[in-house]
């Protein structure tokens, strides 16, 4: 047995040193640790327990020194001894996790670390230890019993009356099975639940009665911890309360590049709920944070997230476009696009002037964003040129906005284009936007024009004109006036199949 114990203690020492040198994840540590674990497990399976007594620099087993190290920093014995640990016991059934935890606690090198507290916190199942405290002199003196006369029976009667209790009631404190279950569930629930929301509530409730520096500081500390752990739900709750104290600066500490770039994983976090909490929290930020927040935008992998973030930044920037304007100078297209988008969201007409230099930007992504921005600040005249943009996507977007903004000045130009042969060369989606524009900006003649397109004899049997007939029919349905619908109904009665089919289809769609 002696040799086995010596072997175990030696293994323990080696594993301890390896842990200090390499850390727990290093293979060198595992090389020392595994044999130690195997040895002690084997020993305990045969002997059931192993008790070691701790002295200042030595460890004893069965009144025999099995370990000696007098160098304080290196000595396992001293580390345990200095914090009052006087014995340590291992029981059969010990797990590797328990041993690793034990080694971890003993190897902690932080100043003021209390090994005994560390061991207690581990709540081992198969490792026990005994800790001594300084001796206390039992100087308690039992107080004298008062000697004055008291009618105790009378006193008891008064108490019974006051408390209104039945002193003879039978007490049966047995718990019913459902009560045991409830209690156990309650314990499990509370163990699982985070205490944080409750503490926040308590501290904020406290502030209802009194402004306390300690409590405000406590909330700020919690806020920092929430932000560190990306718990933006609780961070937001704290920030909401702290904003009642304008003299307390609690958000400034987060408005720096390092912290904000630390939020990058939140931009694409899979759960929308978490993202929304994050978004809500940064709502407390000041415009100082805008340049850093703008950098997050380029990381957004989802269009909806990008959209939400841009809106949030516009909100944070309030009416001040200065920090955003800086990003208009960016050579990075996505940053430029985001800056333009945010300016658009801000709906600041003055800011729209800043966009002028980018109207003819060679990158279609920029032009697309400019269109949105101009749409937001209601500048349709600046959109006109995009109807002739080389990029179809851009043209469509411009047409769509012109329709939305009701800009009749373009009506004759677009009508001419529709009548032009080259119109047939366009994609259906773009052709449709032309007609959408016409219906949105319709004058009294439009129904007549569309009717003539729908019934046009010249196009009978000509396949390529079918699309014109269809677009005219759809436009008539969109107008939805009695005259336009009547035109469709008449068309549906026509003998010509081209007209009949297209009108029937459109009317059917309309009725749906």
């Amino acid at each position, binding site marked *: 047995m002696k040799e086995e114990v010596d072997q175990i203690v030696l293994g323990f020492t080696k594993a301890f040193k390896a842990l200090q040198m390499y850390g727990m994840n290093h293979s060198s540590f595992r090389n020392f640790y595994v044999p130690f674990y195997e040895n002690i497990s084997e020993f305990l399976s045969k002997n059931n327990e192993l008790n070691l007594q701790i002295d200042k620099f030595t460890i004893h087993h069965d009144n025999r020194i099995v370990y000696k190290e007098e160098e304080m920093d290196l000595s396992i014995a001293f580390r345990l001894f200095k914090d009052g640990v006087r014995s340590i016991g291992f029981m059969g059934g010990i797990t590797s996790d328990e041993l690793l935890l034990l080694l971890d606690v003993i190897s902690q090198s932080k100043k003021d670390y209390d090994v005994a507290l560390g061991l207690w916190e581990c709540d081992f199942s198969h490792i026990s230890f005994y800790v001594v405290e300084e001796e206390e002199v039992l100087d308690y003196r039992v107080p004298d019993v008062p000697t004055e006369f008291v009618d105790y029976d009378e006193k008891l009667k008064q108490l019974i009356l006051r408390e209104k209790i039945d002193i003879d009631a039978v007490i049966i404190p047995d718990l019913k099975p459902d009560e045991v279950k409830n209690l156990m569930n309650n314990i499990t629930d509370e163990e699982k639940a985070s205490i944080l929301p409750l503490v926040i509530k308590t501290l904020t409730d*406290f502030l209802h009665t009194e402004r306390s520096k*300690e409590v405000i500081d406590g909330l700020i500390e919690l806020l920092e911890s929430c932000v560190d752990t990306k718990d933006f739900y609780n961070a937001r709750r704290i920030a909401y309360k702290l904003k009642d104290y304008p003299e307390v600066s609690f958000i400034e500490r987060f408005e720096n590049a390092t912290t904000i770039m630390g939020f990058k994983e939140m931009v694409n976090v899979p759960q929308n709920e978490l993202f929304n909490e994050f978004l809500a929290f940064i709502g407390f930020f000041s415009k100082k944070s805008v340049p850093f927040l703008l950098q997050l935008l380029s990381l957004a992998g989802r269009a909806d997230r990008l959209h939400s973030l841009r809106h949030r930044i516009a909100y944070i920037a309030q009416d001040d476009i200065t920090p955003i304007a800086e990003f208009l100078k960016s050579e990075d297209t996505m940053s430029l696009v985001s800056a333009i988008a945010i300016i658009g969201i801000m709906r600041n007409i003055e800011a729209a002037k800043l966009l002028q230099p980018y109207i003819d930007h060679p990158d279609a992504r920029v032009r697309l964003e400019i269109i949105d921005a101009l749409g937001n600040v209601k500048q349709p005249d600046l959109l006109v040129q995009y109807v002739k943009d080389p990029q179809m996507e851009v043209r469509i977007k411009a047409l769509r906005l012109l329709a939305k903004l009701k800009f009749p000045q373009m009506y004759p130009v677009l009508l001419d284009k529709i009548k032009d042969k080259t119109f047939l060369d366009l994609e259906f989606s773009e052709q449709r936007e032309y007609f959408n524009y016409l219906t949105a900006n319709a004058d009294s003649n439009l129904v007549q024009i569309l009717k003539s397109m729908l019934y046009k004899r010249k196009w009978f049997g000509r396949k390529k004109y079918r699309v014109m007939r269809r677009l005219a029919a759809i436009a008539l349905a969109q107008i939805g006036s009695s005259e336009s619908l009547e035109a469709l109904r008449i068309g549906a009665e026509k003998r010509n199949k081209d007209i009949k089919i297209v009108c029937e289809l459109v009317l059917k769609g309309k009725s749906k």
Partner: protein
Amino acid sequence: MSIYTSGKTIVALLYPLLKAVQVYDVNNDVVINTAKKFVAFMETLFSTISSLEFVRYRDYIFFNKQRLKYEIDSYANLQFLNSRLKILRIKSLTFLSGIKHQEIIDFAVIFKEDKVTFLKQFVLKRYPHIKVEFLKAGEEADEFMEDGKFTKRTYFKALKVTKNMMQNLWSGRPVDVKSSRRIVYNLVDTISRDEFGILALTTIKNFDEYTFNHSLNVGILALALGQRIGLDRRSLARLGTSGILHDIGKVEISKELINKVQKLTDQEWETLKMHSNFGVREILKTRGLDEISMIAITVAYQHHWNYDGTGYPLREKEEEPTLFSRVVRICDSYDAMTTARSYQPIPYLPHFALRVIWSNQNRLFDPILAKVFTQLLGIYPVGSCLELNTGEVGLVMRQNPGNIGSPIVKIIVDRNHEKTDGRTIDLAMEVQTKIVRPTYPQMYGINPSAYFL
């Protein structure tokens, strides 16, 4: 069935058998049926396991190397087994395949005896399917055997730490957080090792230093109640700390007001009620915001919240006190009632205070916790003085697990009303001795705590 559940079930079946042989003749049907049930269950296990071994190691009970935890549904059984093994100095107890109900009945009969009788009988009779291994001399270190000494040392150390902490707060000096954390763990160790011993020390009340003793007593009572409901050691440490710190807000209230004898004015009462709020600030000042502090903060704030939604500070309808706050609510009330204070020179008798808690369950106190608290302290809590039908007065020294109306008492006043250092009686065993009524120890010039030191 897992090893853990099997172990718990065996202990649960063994306990009624050990109790039954104390009350009934060995040929009684109750005894025989209980033993048969016990054996039948073991037989199901023997189909897969060759031996069923219970090991007692420093107040832990292991079953086939799995530690059995003290949980609400197994507490009494496990505690009883542990105490018997400890008294009989048994290190391990093993049941082997082939055991019959008569063998286990015979064993149960000697298991209730004292150490010498047990040893003699065990050697004399043959138990082919029961193996017992005894502790060798010196095998269990002295400190573990001398619970009384360890318990007292821990109590007074804890009292000193609590007192220092509060005095330092009162005078604006820094607080030794490390000591207070350590002492809580020492108390957790003590409560698992010597629950009755440490509970007995809560009878120490100090009129002049009420707040210190009260804070510690609430911490200890909370730990004991927490242990009974099956909290693990980590949770117990948190609960114990919360118990000790629950009234820490009182350091912000003048001593004159706290000790005022006359009825408080409305304004004074409102000020006093603020101690729940102040507790939050004091804990923040003392300990910062680690996990334990966060729990202690909520308990300090909520410990006057009643079960029915009343109490102070005001709260929103849907807010409920945490489990720890509900535990401390009961323990705080009990200790406050049983302690003499400036405005309550004659404290409530312990059994009376317990009845106040019992009759206010659902209103002020969590009814389930009130039941467990009653199981913990018994109908006549430790420190109660009882007039017996023998004309003597007995002091309750400890509870009888499983028989809460019949505690173990020490005769402290004889038939002639003279103080005496009399015998100790287990009222569950000595059935002819009956309790007439609880009485005030002051009537006999007695301070119960003197008997526990």
